[in-house]
């Protein structure tokens, strides 16, 4: 049993991503959408924390939102997978439930 967690806020502004990561298990996945995509590149101050998370959990980022914010050509954090909307839909179906951390 596993949960797909959706995060849509920049961790530089809101603590939602931390709050999510502190509670989910290794079978769960996280997708960064909307403003949350700003943490997807390597070289941010969240680098090491997210590397710890990707060591045992699946992290995804929504490409269209990354592109819209001018970040598509930056190198993504190791272990983070970029998906389009269809990929997002597939993730929803592959997990047992979806939890949007609003």
């Amino acid at each position, binding site marked *: *049993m*596993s*949960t797909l967690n959706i995060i849509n806020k920049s961790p530089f502004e809101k603590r939602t991503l931390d*709050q999510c990561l*502190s*509670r*989910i*298990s290794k079978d*769960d996945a996280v997708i960064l959408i909307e403003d949350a995509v700003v943490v997807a590149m390597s070289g941010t101050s969240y680098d090491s924390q997210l590397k710890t998370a990707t060591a045992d959990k699946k992290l995804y980022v929504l490409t269209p939102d990354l592109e819209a914010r001018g970040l598509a050509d930056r190198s993504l954090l190791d272990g983070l997978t970029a998906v389009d909307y269809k990929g997002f839909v597939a993730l929803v179906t592959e997990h*047992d*439930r*979806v*939890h*949007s*951390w*609003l």
Partner: protein
Amino acid sequence: MEEEYSGGVEKKFIYINRRVPHGTAYAIESLETVLIGAAFDQDVSMLFIDDGVFQLKKDQNTESIEFKNFSKAYRALEMYDVEKLYVETESLQERGLSADDLLVGVEMIDRARVNELIDQQDVVLSF
């Protein structure tokens, strides 16, 4: 699911509350959903984590801001057969609160067990 809900499908719903009440409408709208949802005879849990624990704080007095004091309605949940209220211990502690500050009896749950609880659910509604 092939069956109709009226045909007796029972799913496990969890309502996750993470916001301070009154600054936004999420707390009251979550509660309204739970109360309406109770008529569907589903298995309902409510989880209060992060700032959501403030929703259950005793002694809320909304008179001066001219809001309805809906915190009283949490005590009616039992009559709606919503009996599973969980509050995360760490969230309370971080905010300088304890179970004595809450207006209704709840089950305290450690952060490490939150995931276990969510893992048992079919539908997650987060406000």
